């Protein structure tokens, strides 16, 4: 499991994410193949996702959230295990809404 440094500022990651607006849809637009992830030793998505949506589990798998997704595409681009992450955009009108970007 990767231990992330936490001394990067006074703001918690949850507070950081709370500054972005997400209009969450009930259908998940990210689907992860759990079996494929258990066989993955690198788990790039866990490190690279700017929203920290991917969390390693103790049995070597990957847990994922889809709610606070920037819809950037980093996860499927860095994923080394073909087809482990199926990714699409959330339903129209939902998902991230940027304000001052």
């Amino acid at each position: 499991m990767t231990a992330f440094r936490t001394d990067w500022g006074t703001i918690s990651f949850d507070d950081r994410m709370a500054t972005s607006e997400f209009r969450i849809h009930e259908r998940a637009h990210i689907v992860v193949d759990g079996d494929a992830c258990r066989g993955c030793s690198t788990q790039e998505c866990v490190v690279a996702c700017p929203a920290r949506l991917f969390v390693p589990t103790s049995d070597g798998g990957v847990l994922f959230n889809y709610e606070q997704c920037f819809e950037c595409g980093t996860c499927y681009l860095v994923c080394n295990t073909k087809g482990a992450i199926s990714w699409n955009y959330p339903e129209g009108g939902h998902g991230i809404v940027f304000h001052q970007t």
Partner: protein
Amino acid sequence: MTVVACLKWLTPHDADDRFGGISPADSSALEWALRLGEQRGEDVLAITVGPAAADTALRDALACGAQRAIRVDAVDELLSTDVAAAIASAIDGVDVSYVCCGDYSLDRGTGSVPAFLAAQIEARQALGLIEVVLGSDVIALRRLDGGRRERLRVDAPAVLSVEGATATLRRAPLSGALAARNATIEVVAGPVGSHLPTARRPYRPRARVLPPPKGGTLERVQSLLSGGAATKSHGVPVELSPDEAAERILAALDEWGYA
């Protein structure tokens, strides 16, 4: 007859109309209105009291299948009674079967518009619903205090206010979404001005200036040591008419700093 859906548009205080919207409860209310309309073979009328930006919510309703949309033009914030009166006046002449409202708006107001509206149009009311079943009758489950529930048969004409989780608003079909962009929205003039208090404050007593302590040092120390008992005010039983009682309560709240 017609099913009415009432929607409240809100623009966040720190952003512009692009970021505005309606509450999940209002979205649910619209869905119930559409379902009722389909079941009963009636038209659905979406209505809002708000600024021009609120047309977005009405267009979304038209896209989803509402037949008609009315906006009561109102820029200022209004009292719930005024909003209810404005809606009642706008749908005066419409043969209403059911009115569907969300039980809260995005700004979490008092949620009292549905009740005032029911009184205005002399309809039944079933408020704060957590479940609605459309069969031969409209059966609604209502939340009561203490975890209790009340199951009601709601006959038309009636006002329903629903919670956000009761239904998910359908996805507007492409044809509807395209047509709605140029659909006509009827705009009627709304009430002018606002009777609302000009400043909004949190619901807790205000800090107030206390008179300087009276008495000598010894008395003050005794007063402190008595755990405040010496200065604590006690309830005063009074017997008053309802009107006088209301006045007395308001005066007391004022005195305690709630005003």
